[in-house]
């Protein structure tokens, strides 16, 4: 009854078996990726090269080459403005979120009374960061650094600044608190990174006479370098996918606009995606270089 297999063949079949089971486990995801990501992405790209009109029963494409892209980049007065605004805001926000999250995480890593209470409060943004709620908060004026942005001295100071520097500073003042609302998960990730540092390293540094300041720059910061890269990527993506983001709102409005339409909105989506990837690459490149240098 039993068939005796040759050992060699059996070994091959084991490896094949393993990879077959592996594929089996990820099969659902692969199908999903094709149906819900790859295919729609390709279709959106196709739309971006066409003027698209949708009727109740069909979708009509009219090939226009790169016209949608050139319109977005060279003709549309709003889009480029919004895109620049988004880039500036992201480049300002990411360092603030990272520094703030790192500081809060270091606080939470200390031992003190009522720590549980503070932890619960500091992680509130994880549950509350949703589009409509944040919009309500902004409308109440709860998002700006209290009173600073309306101070006449500050306004006068802003007017003295060169134009290129003015909008980031203005954004910083008006949205500082809003930026802090985006740091919940990052605090958590930093805290995990801090807790991975071995206590004995601190003790050794203390015995060698290192001050807290030196310990931070020589031990804590280098150990947090990989976590920082993760946090930076996360922050950029969350900020750029946020549904109240002005660029996203504009693209969404254009989708249903008679003058815009699906083709134009698709082209803008791809330009936006490109800008986002560039920002991601710039920040990651800078951080990775720093990480490599500091871990040496």
């Amino acid at each position: 009854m039993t068939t005796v297999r040759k050992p060699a063949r059996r070994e091959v079949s084991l490896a094949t078996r393993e990879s077959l089971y592996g594929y089996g486990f990820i099969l659902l995801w692969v199908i999903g990726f094709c149906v819900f990501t790859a295919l729609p992405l390709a279709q959106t790209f196709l739309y971006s090269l066409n003027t698209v009109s949708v009727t109740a029963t069909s979708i009509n494409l009219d090939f226009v080459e790169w016209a949608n892209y050139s319109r977005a980049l060279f003709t549309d007065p709003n889009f480029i403005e919004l895109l620049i605004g988004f880039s500036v805001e992201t480049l300002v926000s990411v360092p603030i979120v990272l520094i703030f999250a790192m500081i809060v995480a270091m606080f939470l890593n200390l031992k003190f009374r009522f720590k549980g209470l503070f932890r619960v409060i500091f992680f509130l943004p994880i549950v509350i960061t949703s589009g409509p709620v944040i919009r309500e908060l902004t409308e109440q004026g709860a998002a700006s650094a209290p009173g600073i942005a309306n101070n006449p001295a500050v306004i006068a100071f802003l007017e003295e600044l060169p134009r290129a520097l003015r909008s980031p500073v203005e954004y910083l003042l008006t949205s500082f608190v809003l930026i802090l609302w985006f740091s919940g998960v990052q605090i958590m990730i930093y805290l995990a990174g801090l807790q991975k540092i071995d206590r004995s390293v601190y003790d050794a540094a203390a015995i060698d006479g290192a001050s807290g300041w030196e310990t931070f720059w020589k031990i804590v910061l280098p150990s947090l370098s990989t976590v920082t890269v993760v946090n930076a990527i996360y922050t950029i993506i969350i900020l750029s996918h946020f549904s109240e983001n002005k660029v996203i709102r504009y693209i969404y409005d254009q989708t249903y606009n008679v003058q815009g339409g699906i083709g134009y909105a698709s082209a803008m989506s791809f330009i936006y995606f490109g800008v986002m990837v560039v920002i991601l690459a710039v920040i990651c490149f800078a951080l990775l270089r720093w990480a490599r240098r500091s871990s040496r």
Partner: protein
Amino acid sequence: MMNILRHPAAERARGILFGNRAHRGITFTIVLYALLIAIGFVYLQPLLFMFINSIKDPSDLLNPMVQWVPTQLYAGNYERAYRVLDYPNTLMASIFISVVPSLIQAFVTSLVGYGLARYQFRGKRLIFVLLLATFIIPPQNTVIPQMLMYRDLNLLGNPLALILPALLGQGYRSAIFVLIFYQTFVSLPKVLEESARLDGATDLRIFFTIAVPSAIPAYIVSFIFSTVWYWNETFLTVIFLEGGVTTLPMQLSSFAQAYENLYPAGTVNIFERLNEAVKMSGTFLNILPLLVMYFVLQHWFVESVEMTGITGE
């Protein structure tokens, strides 16, 4: 002068004020608490502000003397916000729309994470790259064809429009959960699974009887984060569900409109017009279920990273 500073009493005073190797000084402790309270205030202030204003009656709202302490508890705003939001229905819709895809998402992403962590096969690196890509690609780059596809299948406005992607591992921020499960399963010892395999258990059986029970914390963390994110998601829900299902955040974004419909401007007196207090009651009712969930499950939120061991390397 120097002698006074070296005096033991002075040393002790300095130790108490500025701390020494053994413990922190008072100065540091005061600064620490001041900063902690300041940061805590940043997060609590909007919530407090919202809550206080939501219980002010119209005369308190107009009275500039009444800032933080209303003269009386007024529930009228909540009554109206409750009716405008159509609270019981939208609440149930929100719960359904966030819980069901989250459950499915947690299960499917755990399958994928297990496959990636436990099996060797070609193209694994590619899968990781694609996984990261699904996280990076903005939703508006894929949403229009998806919407048109759903339209053809007559699924617009049907909860299936959110459930189907979750079932195929493409739910909201799925990539994060796959990575959480990958980390979890990679760090679990293999011994049990290997001995089960020697006893002749099939791979699926091993997954369900050994891997799943040992990854329960990862399941819980994934499920609650996924629920929160689905709850707060408005971009996709508006596009896919508009006209079929109305969730709380969706109703909140059209709050003013809904208010007009329920209380037409001509028919109500000035005190019943839409004011800030009613809007804030609406916002508060919107985040209330999340707050309740957060305080009940806070231990899972606050310690989730430790529980799943994810740090993202």
